[in-house]
């Protein structure tokens, strides 16, 4: 393993993380809800009266975040190497996996670890390991 110091962005990443934590804290302490993205979106597939609008409001906030950000600074560039077929396969796996696994990076990785949930520790360890292994196979074994 070598460390990529050129792309290492400790301060923005830590600051962004703190802001994500703060957003989680706001939703939890004011509304009593868990800021797990896949859970919030997934819940829209089984609408329960009184439990729909806040989900839409949260997702709307997420989707509009780049507009808010661009009022203050230029949006950072993003590079997506995956082509359409890979994106479709990856999207399906992420959609299925997060619902069967009851959470994603936010629900398990941030909220679950913050409340010291054994399920979330297990899930986070598994999806991180699967992510590491997938990138290893795609980057170093196949190509």
């Amino acid at each position, binding site marked *: *393993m070598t460390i990529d110091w050129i*792309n290492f*962005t*400790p301060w923005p*990443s*830590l600051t*962004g*993380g*703190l*802001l*994500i*934590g*703060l*957003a*989680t804290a*706001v*939703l939890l*302490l*004011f*509304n009593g809800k868990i800021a797990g*993205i896949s859970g919030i979106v*997934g819940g829209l*597939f089984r609408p329960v009266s009184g439990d729909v609008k806040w989900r839409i*409001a949260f*997702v709307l*906030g997420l*989707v509009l975040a*780049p507009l808010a*950000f*661009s009022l203050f600074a230029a949006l950072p560039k*993003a*590079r*997506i*190497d*995956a082509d359409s077929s*890979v*994106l479709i*396969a990856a*999207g399906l796996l992420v*959609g*299925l*996996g*997060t*619902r*069967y*696994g*009851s959470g994603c*990076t936010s629900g398990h*990785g*941030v909220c679950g*670890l*913050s409340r010291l949930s054994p399920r979330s520790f297990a*899930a986070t360890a598994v*999806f991180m390991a*699967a*992510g590491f292994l*997938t*990138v290893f196979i*795609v980057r*170093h074994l196949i190509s």
Partner: protein
Amino acid sequence: MQLLIAFISGLMFGVGLIISGMTNPAKVIGFLDLAGAWDMSLALVMIGAILVGLIAFHIAAKRPKALLGDLMRLPTARQVDLRLIGGALVFGVGWGLAGYCPGPALVSIISGGSKPVIFVASMLAGMGIFEIQDRLAHKKR
């Protein structure tokens, strides 16, 4: 009021993802690529978020109700089962393939061109398939 809070929380969450670098799939894959040149930035995103989260969940655990009067809805499941592990495994493979997890993909749909839109559409389809399968399984029982 709850709706405004949810909107603001989503907005803050999304801006946090943008600042942190999570909305750049190449950076996410740089973090997942342990055998290459490892970009450890994203570990700091998690550490930052969990530092605040620990405090928030510590406070929340002692309160039956949220500040705006709703019940505190914390997950109650305890069991580590095959469904959890299998789901996490499948999610991790998808995450590693594209470099997107659900939050950053949603944040990118209006500013990131067609690729995040394709990913999100497919992700929603995956969630829909889960929903259909789950309902059929419940009917059988």
